[in-house]
Each structure stands twice: as structure tokens, then as C-alpha cells.
């Protein structure tokens, strides 16, 4: 019993003991199966889910936490306790179970390995120490040294069983004897491989000599290569501060070897201590230099690419740690010795080549025979196919030897040698309808020229002249189109082009937007195809007005020229797109700004006003009007800014405007053909100006050119006065009929004027688009002349019209000219002549008559008008720059100036007086006398053009008039003013 008792004490109990059964307690019923449930510590049921889904269910019905689910910690802030940052830790998301003993984050300290204080594994220690260098805290092995696991791996166990002991290498045991011998030999001769002078073996060598021959030794232990994952976020090659290095004060100036980390620390670990001057203080990449230290050149780590390896492999560690890279090390050693034996300097980053480069064996070229001539003669071609008896191999050899491929049968060719026509015939496809080559699209003469050219270059090749009838027909079709035809001729050519061409449905429909027009156009085309000569007239709608018809005529002819059968034949080669592009209209400003060139010229001549002014419709924003307190000028319009219109991308008008520059004449001469440019507008408007005193003067550049190109300016001025005096006599007659004077000029002009009056025309751009270049030479020339006349007239009108704004006092000269015609002309002539000395070449011709120059301009125009005829021949349409005035002008002007200086001075006085005059008066007067003036100048013009004999006489007249007559006129003026 006692023994039993003792035995009881020694018992080790496992598990929890069952409750002792009590006698009186009834036997418990076994728990039924459905009640055998698993509960956690808190008594919650744990339902089994299956091994793969995580075992037991977690939380509340597989959710986290409670019935409400997992509630995150809420943000609370108060005055005392400002919101501090809440960092969520992983523990916040764990259940209590996880903190338990067997959880994933146990709160208690548990052992994960068994520990022992047995003998240390030195090799492992070394490896660990090496690995620790790469760790975040270098040299952090202290803890591991203190607590070392007792468990050894199965491999170690097996090795132990096999007789391995710690500290030994693995492998067959070796003898040391031969190694020693080799070493001895190495001193005298160095054949073959040198053995590494292993540092650790040196010490062994001392007692090895005592070792007997039959004793073998275990191989040297090898330090395992430690592959440690990078844990930190530092970049590649970063080393933390190594206390051992840092305390030595060594900078990071040595070569960085990414593939041999911590080689120097390793070598230091294995005993080859470097001879470095030990310094105090801490230094390293992250540390500067202390205040007490004197060297500061290496404060900042400077990096350079030369410190990195750029090639994998390369140098192997020479630290005796030969693991799996061991074999290379021996060759490496040899290199080292070779490097040392090399006398020259080896560049950094280079080593001596291991193997000397193979010398190229250069064979000398064969000696040429003395009679060799370097001229190549081609051997004659041999038609292999014709050599019937030749074997195919021979034929092949012949071919290859010559380098010439003899033409083979098409059957033997690959499919890449076939051209499209051959393929088509093979496939049995129909030939394409259109022209077969680009040459077909050319005109025959062009083609002929091309052929000639080609023939001349290689006369031997015979050019295939197509004898195809249809092609010839096509050529004929194309003939008529290319050269710029004119007038009816063009219509004929169109007819010729369209005649007989098959009705292709794919022709371009230029008037698609207006179906009726397109229908008429189609009709026209049909007739053309039938060869109807008056197709155009027949296809037009007779109910339309003449103007509309002529316009349409024009368009149709143009369109038929543009989309002639050639293009349709070309288009037959292409298929039209399945999905039509909707973007065939572009948004453009409705009112385009006019040509800048014209305006620039106008600015150069300082003719501001109509020429430089453009007015657009502009829609201000509604709100803007409200803010400016003005009513909306365009109520109800949704537009803001400049109104935009959609315009067809491919509208005929677009094409026509492009064609404008080309000299394409239209066959039917429309009645409006005379007016076609923007200048017409100005003409039209200037008609209105005669009624409107505020409107600007229409000055035309031609007048300027007239004036300055006038060879005899001084004479002209004097003549002007005489003419004026004469016109004074005829004043009554002139007043009677304006038509008469106009009619005196030229019949052509009259006609044009009548034409202009005959109707109000549609908007300008329409004209521009259609008729820009559509007029034969005759009509255009006549219109030019008429334009000139008109312009000159306009300008003269405008001159007297000139109405400066209210705030300005006008120059008196204009007043005088308007009030008394005769005196004005004389005085103005005088002033002009005197002023021209200074400013004939300058802007004296401008109509800007704010300054006193208005008198000058008026005079100069009278003069200019006199020479209008001569200048007319040179006139060209459009604005021109004034040619530089000839020196003769100035001389003449000076002459006149000397003659009439006193008159000028007198005139000036008058001017000053008259400036204070009432402006309204002036306006009225000007209005009145404008017409007179205009006619009178017309008259003078005529006079001058009539005869050149008058010139001398005029001069005489001038002399006579100048003194007495002028005084009289001046008096006249003054009386006028006082009235």
C-alpha cells in the first residue's frame, strides 16, 4: 500500500479528471447525438462547416462579432480630447480566440522550438553572422546566440549517423599529403592550377606535417550561402550602418558589389583584418562628420556608376567561401596571378583576357597572272529550254551559273509572279469597267508625249499602243475637257464629253439638297448624253425668271464640267461608302470677312472708311443687354455672337469659289456679266451717297495712280483751273442734265450704268461665287472702264461730300469750293500747287479732309481727271499701289508754287476765319454744290481729252486769270460768307 501511495504521488496526470461518481446519483443518460454540440468559451454554439471552409463557423452566424455585425470604432472628438489619430492594429480585427494559447496571435509567451544549451554549431553561427550583416540591424545575432534551438534538422541527424561531425565538411575524406607536395612545387614552378591559399588552413598546415600518411581528413567545412530576403524598403545595395565599420570611420568609398554583399565584412569576420587607421567617431552614409573631426570631404555619399558591377558574374569572392561557385574560384586565382604578372596598368573595370585572342589567319590573295586584264565579258545567254537534250540538273546548273533566270512558263511561276490581270482571268472575273491604267486618263497628246519620252530613253523597247476601240473612244471623251474652254465652246465640249457616255447612276449629285434642281440637272445630263445641242436651254425651267435661269445655266455647265464622265469612269473603279458621312456640312461664320489684301491696300492709301469697315450682325447675350440696360437688338434669336450657318462641305459654290482664280469663262453671257466683283457693291452704295452727306467718299486707288503717274502735273493743275473757268460759263448747261455729261464720255459706260440701274441684285457673295470669273474679255474690259469712271466720279462726289464728325471744325477750303465753284477751283489749285512742293508724293490724294488737304485733293483730282484718258489704258482692275511720282512733277509744282505764293497766304487767312463758321451751313452748301462740282469736273475731263492743243492756250489763260481774276473771286467768297 505504501508503495502504492508512493506510486500515486509519482503519477503524472493528463487531462481533466472525471467527476467522481456519487453513489446516490442516478446514472446519467448518454447525451444524444443531436445534443452533442461544440461550444466555445463563451458558450456559443460552434457549428461545424467542414474542413475547407474553416472548420467551425465564426462569430454570429458566420458574420463577425455580434448580431449587429462588426462595428468599427467611431470617431470621437471633444474639446478636451482632440481627435487623435486612431491607428487600427491587426488585433482590432481579431477575435478573442486568436489571442488564446493556440490562436494566431497568442498573448502568452510560448515556445516555438525546443531550446538547449548544447554545443554550438559553429558553421551555422558563422552563416548566421554573415546573414546578420544584411539584416536590418547589422550584427543582430545576440538574441539568437543566447537562445539557440535544440532541434536539429533531419539532414543533420542523418549526417551525424554517417559519422559527420559538426565543424567538418561534407564529402569523402581526403589526404593532405599530395597537397603539401604541390604547394612545395608551387614555389619553384607554377604549372596548372594553383591551389587556393586558404586562410583557415594555414594554421592547420603547421601540424599537418606531423600527420601520418594513412590518415585522411574530412574536407573543409563550407559556409552556406545565405539567401536572405530583403525585409526593408531600402533600395538595392543599401547597407545599414554597420557599427563595426562606422566606428572605424570608414566611408563608403569602396566598390559596391551588389552580388557579393558585405564581402568586406565577411572577410573581416573570417579573420583577414584590414590595416586601416582606426579613428574615433561614427561615420557612414547616414552620418556627417563630427565637429571635432577634420576631414569632411566624404560627408555626403557620392555615387558613381563605376562603383557598380554592370555584368552578372565576373569576379568571384576570393574569401575562401567556395560553395557552389567553388570551381570558378581556381581559375579566378590564376587570373589574379596573371594580372599581377602584367606589367602595364590595367584599367579599372578590366582584367587581362584569360585566353589570348585567336590570331586570324590571313591567307594572301592569289597572285594574278601577268597577262590579266580586269575586264569582264558576259557570256552569251543560252536558252536552256531550247536545249532539248539537256538534263534538268544541267539546265539548273546553267541557270545558276549565269545568274540569269530564263523566262519560264507561267504555269511554273509562283502566284506572286502573277499580276492582277492574270489572276483575274484565272479566277474568271469580269474586267473592271473603268480605265485600265492611269495612262487612259491622260489626254492622247500627253500620252503620246510620254510615250515619246519613253521611247527616246530606251528606243529598243516597243511600246504597246493600245488599239482597243473603247479606249480610244474614252480618250476622245477626255479630250475636250482638259483645256480651259471658253464660252459656247465650253458648252460644246461638255456636250462632246457627255455624248454617248453610258448613264452611270453613280455620278455625283451636286444639287442634292434641292431635288427639283437636281432633277433639272439630271435632265440636262440626259440630254447631253443623247447629244442634244441645246440641252441646257431645254432642261431649264421656263417658269423661272431670266436671272434665275441664267444663274442655273451657269451652274449646270460648271457642274457638268466638274463632274464629267471621266471622273465618273474613274469612280466606277471605286465603290461608294456604305455609311454616308453626316459631316458633310461645316459651321462657318455667316458673314465672312472680306479680302485682307484690298483692305491693306486701302490702309496704305489711308482710305479708311467703306473699304476698311465691315459690319456684321452680332448677337449679344440677353443678360448682357440687361446689364447694359439696352433692349435686346435681336429678340427671340437664340444665337449668341456672330451668327453661324451650316454650309455644305461639297457645295458647288465651294468648288466654284476655288475655280474663281482660274480663268474659266462661261458660255452664255448673262446680262449681269459686267458686274461681278466686290467693287460693284461700292458702286451701288455710292449711288446712295449722293443723297447721303454722311456717307464716305468712295475713293478708288486708280485715281491715285492716275494722279501720280501723270507726267505733267504742273501743267495739269493750271489746266485744271482753266477748265474750271470754262466750265463756269457752261454751268447752266451742265446743270440741266446729268445724263448728257455722262453720255459724252463713252457709250460703253452709259450702257453699264443703265445695266446697273435696271434691277436690284441679290447678295454679293452669290455673285462672287458664280460669276466671279464668268465674263468674256470684252465685257470685263468695258466694266473696268466703267468702273474707273464710276470710281472717279464717286470719289469726286465723296470729296465734296466729306463730312467730318460734328466735333471737328472743317477746313474752309471745302466750303469755298462748294460755295463758289470758280474761285474754289482756282484757290484750290493754288494751294495745291504750293503744297505739292512738300507733299505731292505723300498722302495728298487721300480723301480724309479733316486737315486742309481737302482743297489739295480736289484740285489734284481735277488735274488727274484731265489725264484720265491717257491713264486709262494702263488701268487694271482692282486696287493698285501708286507708282512713285517723277521728279518732273515736283519741279513743276515748285514752279507753280513760286508763282502763287501770295495767293496761298491769303487763302490761309481765309481758312482760319472760315473755320469758325457754322457747320450746318457748310453741310447744306456742300450738298448743294456737290453735283455742280461733279459735273464741272466731268466737263473738264472731257475738255482735256478732246484736244491737247488747248494746253498752251490754257496756260496763257491761267497767267491772265491768276492776278486780277483771283482777287475778284476772293472778294466774291467773302461776300458770300457775310451773307
Amino acid at each position, binding site marked *: 500500500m505504501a508503495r502504492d501511495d508512493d506510486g500515486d504521488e509519482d503519477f503524472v496526470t493528463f487531462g481533466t479528471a472525471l467527476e467522481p461518481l456519487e453513489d446516490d446519483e442516478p446514472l446519467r443518460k448518454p447525451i444524444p447525438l443531436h445534443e452533442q454540440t461544440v461550444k466555445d468559451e463563451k458558450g456559443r454554439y460552434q457549428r461545424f462547416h467542414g474542413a475547407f471552409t474553416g472548420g467551425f463557423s465564426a462569430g454570429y452566424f458566420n458574420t463577425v462579432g455580434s448580431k449587429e455585425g462588426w462595428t468599427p470604432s467611431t470617431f470621437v472628438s471633444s474639446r478636451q480630447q482632440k481627435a487623435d489619430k486612431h491607428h487600427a492594429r491587426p488585433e482590432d480585427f481579431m477575435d478573442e480566440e486568436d489571442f488564446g494559447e493556440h490562436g494566431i496571435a497568442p498573448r502568452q509567451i510560448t515556445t516555438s522550438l525546443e531550446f538547449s544549451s548544447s554545443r554550438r554549431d559553429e558553421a551555422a553561427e558563422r552563416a548566421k553572422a554573415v546573414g546578420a550583416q544584411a539584416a536590418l540591424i547589422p550584427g543582430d545575432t545576440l538574441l539568437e546566440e543566447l537562445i539557440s534551438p535544440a532541434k536539429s534538422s533531419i539532414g543533420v541527424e542523418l549526417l551525424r549517423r554517417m559519422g559527420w561531425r559538426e565543424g567538418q565538411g561534407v564529402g569523402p575524406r581526403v589526404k593532405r599529403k599530395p597537397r603539401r607536395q604541390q604547394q612545395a612545387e608551387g614555389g619553384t614552378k607554377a604549372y596548372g592550377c594553383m591551389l587556393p591559399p586558404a586562410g583557415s588552413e594555414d594554421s592547420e598546415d603547421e601540424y599537418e606535417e606531423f600527420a601520418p600518411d594513412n590518415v585522411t581528413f574530412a574536407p573543409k567545412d563550407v559556409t552556406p550561402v545565405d539567401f536572405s530576403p530583403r525585409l526593408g524598403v531600402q533600395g538595392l545595395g543599401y547597407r545599414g550602418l554597420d557599427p563595426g565599420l562606422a566606428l572605424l570611420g570608414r566611408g563608403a568609398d569602396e566598390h559596391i558589389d551588389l552580388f557579393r554583399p558585405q564581402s568586406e565584412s565577411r572577410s573581416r569576420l573570417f579573420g583577414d583584418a584590414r590595416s586601416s587607421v582606426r579613428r574615433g567617431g561614427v561615420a557612414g552614409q547616414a552620418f556627417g562628420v563630427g565637429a571635432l573631426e577634420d576631414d569632411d570631404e566624404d560627408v555626403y555619399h557620392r555615387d558613381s556608376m563605376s562603383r557598380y558591377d554592370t555584368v552578372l558574374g565576373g569576379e568571384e569572392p576570393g574569401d575562401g567561401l567556395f560553395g557552389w561557385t567553388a570551381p570558378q574560384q581556381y581559375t579566378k586565382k590564376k587570373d589574379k596571378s596573371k594580372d599581377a604578372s602584367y606589367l602595364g596598368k590595367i584599367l579599372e573595370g578590366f582584367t587581362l583576357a584569360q585566353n589570348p585572342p585567336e590570331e586570324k589567319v590571313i591567307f594572301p590573295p592569289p597572285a594574278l597572272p601577268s597577262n590579266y586584264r580586269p575586264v569582264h565579258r558576259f557570256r552569251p545567254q543560252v536558252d536552256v529550254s531550247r536545249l532539248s537534250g539537256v538534263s534538268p540538273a544541267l539546265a539548273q546548273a546553267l541557270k545558276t551559273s549565269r545568274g540569269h533566270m530564263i523566262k519560264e512558263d507561267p504555269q511554273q511561276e509562283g502566284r506572286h509572279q502573277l499580276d492582277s490581270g492574270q489572276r483575274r482571268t484565272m479566277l474568271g472575273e469580269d474586267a473592271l469597267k473603268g480605265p485600265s491604267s492611269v495612262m487612259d486618263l491622260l489626254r492622247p497628246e500627253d500620252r503620246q508625249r510620254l510615250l515619246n519620252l519613253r521611247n527616246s530613253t530606251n528606243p529598243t523597247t516597243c511600246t504597246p499602243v493600245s488599239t482597243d476601240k473603247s479606249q480610244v473612244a474614252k480618250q476622245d471623251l477626255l479630250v475636250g475637257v482638259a483645256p480651259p474652254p471658253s464660252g459656247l465652246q465650253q458648252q460644246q465640249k461638255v456636250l462632246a464629253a457627255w455624248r454617248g457616255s453610258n448613264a452611270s447612276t453613280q455620278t455625283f449629285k451636286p444639287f442634292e439638297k434641292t431635288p427639283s434642281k437636281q432633277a433639272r440637272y439630271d435632265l440636262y445630263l440626259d440630254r447631253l448624253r443623247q447629244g442634244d445641242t441645246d440641252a441646257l436651254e431645254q432642261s431649264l425651267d421656263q417658269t423661272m425668271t431670266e436671272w434665275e435661269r441664267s444663274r442655273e445655266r451657269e451652274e449646270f455647265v460648271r457642274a457638268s464640267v466638274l463632274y464629267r464622265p471621266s471622273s465618273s469612269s474613274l469612280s466606277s473603279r471605286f465603290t461608294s461608302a456604305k455609311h454616308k458621312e453626316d459631316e458633310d456640312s461645316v459651321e462657318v461664320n455667316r458673314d465672312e470677312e472680306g479680302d485682307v489684301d484690298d483692305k*491693306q491696300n486701302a490702309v496704305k492709301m489711308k482710305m479708311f472708311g467703306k473699304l476698311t469697315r465691315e459690319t456684321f450682325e452680332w448677337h*449679344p447675350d440677353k*443678360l448682357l443687354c440687361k446689364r447694359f440696360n*439696352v433692349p435686346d*437688338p435681336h429678340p427671340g434669336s437664340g444665337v449668341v*455672337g456672330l451668327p453661324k450657318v451650316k454650309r455644305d462641305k461639297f457645295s458647288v459654290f465651294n468648288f466654284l469659289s476655288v475655280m474663281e482664280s482660274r480663268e474659266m469663262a462661261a458660255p452664255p453671257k448673262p446680262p449681269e456679266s459686267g458686274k461681278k466683283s466686290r467693287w460693284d457693291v461700292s458702286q451701288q452704295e455710292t449711288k446712295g451717297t449722293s443723297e447721303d452727306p454722311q456717307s464716305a467718299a468712295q475713293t478708288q486707288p486708280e485715281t491715285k495712280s492716275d494722279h501720280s503717274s501723270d507726267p505733267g502735273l504742273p501743267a495739269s493743275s493750271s489746266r485744271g483751273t482753266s477748265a474750271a473757268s470754262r466750265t463756269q460759263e457752261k454751268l447752266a448747261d451742265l446743270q440741266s442734265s446729268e445724263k448728257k455729261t455722262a453720255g459724252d464720255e463713252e457709250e460703253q459706260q452709259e450702257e453699264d450704268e443703265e445695266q446697273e440701274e435696271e434691277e436690284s441684285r441679290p447678295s454679293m457673295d452669290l455673285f462672287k461665287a458664280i460669276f466671279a470669273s464668268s465674263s468674256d474679255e470684252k465685257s470685263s474690259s468695258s466694266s473696268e472702264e466703267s468702273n474707273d469712271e464710276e470710281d472717279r466720279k464717286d470719289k469726286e462726289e465723296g470729296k465734296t461730300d466729306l463730312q467730318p464728325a460734328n*466735333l471737328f471744325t472743317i477746313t474752309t477750303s471745302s466750303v469755298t469750293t462748294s460755295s463758289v465753284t470758280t474761285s474754289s477751283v482756282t484757290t484750290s489749285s493754288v494751294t495745291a500747287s504750293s503744297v505739292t512742293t512738300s507733299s505731292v508724293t505723300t498722302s495728298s490724294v487721300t480723301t*480724309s479732309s479733316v486737315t486742309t488737304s481737302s482743297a489739295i485733293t480736289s484740285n489734284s483730282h481735277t488735274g488727274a481727271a484731265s489725264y484720265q484718258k491717257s491713264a486709262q489704258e494702263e488701268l487694271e482692275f482692282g486696287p493698285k499701289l501708286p507708282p512713285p511720282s517723277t521728279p518732273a512733277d515736283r519741279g513743276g509744282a515748285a514752279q507753280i508754287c513760286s508763282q502763287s505764293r501770295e495767293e496761298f497766304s491769303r487763302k490761309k487767312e481765309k481758312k482760319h476765319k472760315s473755320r469758325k463758321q457754322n457747320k450746318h451751313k457748310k453741310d447744306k452748301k456742300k450738298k448743294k454744290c456737290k453735283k455742280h462740282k461733279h459735273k464741272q469736273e466731268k466737263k473738264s475731263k472731257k475738255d482735256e481729252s478732246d484736244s491737247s492743243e488747248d494746253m498752251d492756250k490754257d496756260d496763257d489763260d491761267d497767267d491772265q486769270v491768276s492776278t486780277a481774276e483771283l482777287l475778284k473771286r476772293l472778294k466774291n467768297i467773302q461776300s458770300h460768307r457775310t451773307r
Partner: protein
Amino acid sequence: MAFPQPKPQAPQLPQHLLRTIDCQQGAVRAVRFNADGNYVLSCGSDKSLKLWSVSQGTFLKTYSGHGYEVLDADGSYDNSQICSCSSDKSVILWDVATGQVTRKLRGHAGKVNCVQFNEEATVILSGSIDGTVRCWDTRSRRFEPIQVLDEARDSISSLKVAQHELLTGSVDGRVRRYDLRMGQLHVDFVNSPITCVCFSQDGQCTLSSSLDSTVRLLDKSTGEMLGEFTGHKMKGYKLDCCLSSKDTHVLSCSEDGFVYCWDLVEGSLSLKLPVGKAVVQSLAFHPSETCLLTAMEGRVQVWGAEPEDIIVVLVERPRD
């Protein structure tokens, strides 16, 4: 004529230097009178806008909030607000009294050259190097412009507002006049980059200076040239021009350090005011009196018709 017409006074010219204000805000880019001509706004290249009193020449307030040099400014009719524009692409509406930014309007794509209130200060109009004029509403709190006028093909260099008309000068060589009442846009082609445009006081003419060293007086309604004023040098800088308060003279800055003053009618040079050696950057004429402001480098100079002492008396008498 019941009453005899008053004798026309000989036009006076601001030829006496009254005072020089050293603004100390870098180069003065623009100098402007307020609506009644008692105060001066100077736009500095150091991002500041300064308010001065003309009569004393004293400094009153600095308005800072721009991110780059201030290029133009304008005061509202009731002196309660100032608008200014800057190279930082923004237009700022200031409260005069507090000096706070009431509104900062962004939207221009480039530096804003010129800014103007309309007559009732309900709209700010700003012209920019991006070629647009933007009309900003000061009444609502919208930050988008009411309307963007993008007709110009180049930078807007100058703009003026008169009643229902907006006049803009652009580097594309065109003077545009937007007539809100008529709903029309009139474009006058000048062919040289416009540096400054002005309405005459009577609203009948427009004055435009361009880089061909010419100032042109154009009739507003027709676009005719009424006068051309040359002699000064304006080749590369955006310099101002203006008309005198009575429309008697045309004044223009010049790159040779003078302010040229021409008789409007005669077209003759009536005064060549030596301001300094550098370029006269900006000038402004008093809305009613004969008083001229010029800006050269960092200084603003006030010029008057009479020497200083008389002016001072004239100004100070009402106070007594």
C-alpha cells in the same frame, strides 16, 4: 442767338509737373484715374495695385491678391469697387474700402491685358492675350462669363466701354466696335497691331494707336479716318493713348520718353512733354480737368496746366 457765345478758352495743356509719386511697386504697368479723377490707381509689376490721392499725392491703400503683375485696373462709377487684371490670367473685383477680394474671375487662357467696368459697374469686361473679351457679371455669383467675344484673331490689347458700346483693339490690326443696342459688330481694319483704343468724350470718334507709330482718329459711324497723328515712336510696346478731357488734343505715350500731344483738328504737334529717359508706359487724362498722369518705370507723374501752387489753392479752397 440770344446769348453771346462764350469766348472759347485757349486750350490748356498739362505741361507743368505737379508731383512725382514713387510707387515702389516695381514698374508701373498702368496708371488710371478713378471716375471723378480724385484718385489714382497704379498697377505695379510686383503684383500689387495701389490707390493714391491725386491732390496730395499720398498713398492710400494697397490691394494685393494677384499672382503676377497687374496690367490694368478700373474704378467703378461710385468708387466702391475696383476691377483689375493681371498676367496671372485672372480678373479681380476689389472692395475699395476693405481692400478685400470680392471676386476672383478666372477663365482667360492667357494674361489679361485690359479690364473695364461698364457704366453701371454691373459688368466687367476683360480682354486677354487669348484673343477673347469676357463679360463677367458682377451682380450674380456666377463665375462663368456672360458672354465670350472671340471674334479677334489675336490678342486683345485694349478695350473701352461707352454706354452701350464696346470698343476693342486687337493685335490682329482691327478695331472692333460691338454695338449692343444695334446688335452689330463693326470691324475697322488698321493693318497694324493696335495698342490702345479710346472713345472720344462725345462718343463720335474712336482713337486707336498702333505699332506703326501712328495714332488714328476714326469716325465711329463710318470708319473714315479723320486724323492721323505721327511723330512719336511706338514700335514694340503696348503704350497708351488718350484724348484730352475736352477732346481738343490727342495724347500718346512714346518709346522715346516723351508724351506727344497733338492738336486734334490741326493734327500738328502742340506739345512734346519730356517725361524721362525711359519708355512712357501708360498715361491717363483727367476726366474733367487738365491733368495728366504718366507712368514711367516705377514712377507716376502728375502734370497740370498751371504750376503747383495755384492748383493747390484751387483744390483746397472748398475745404475752407
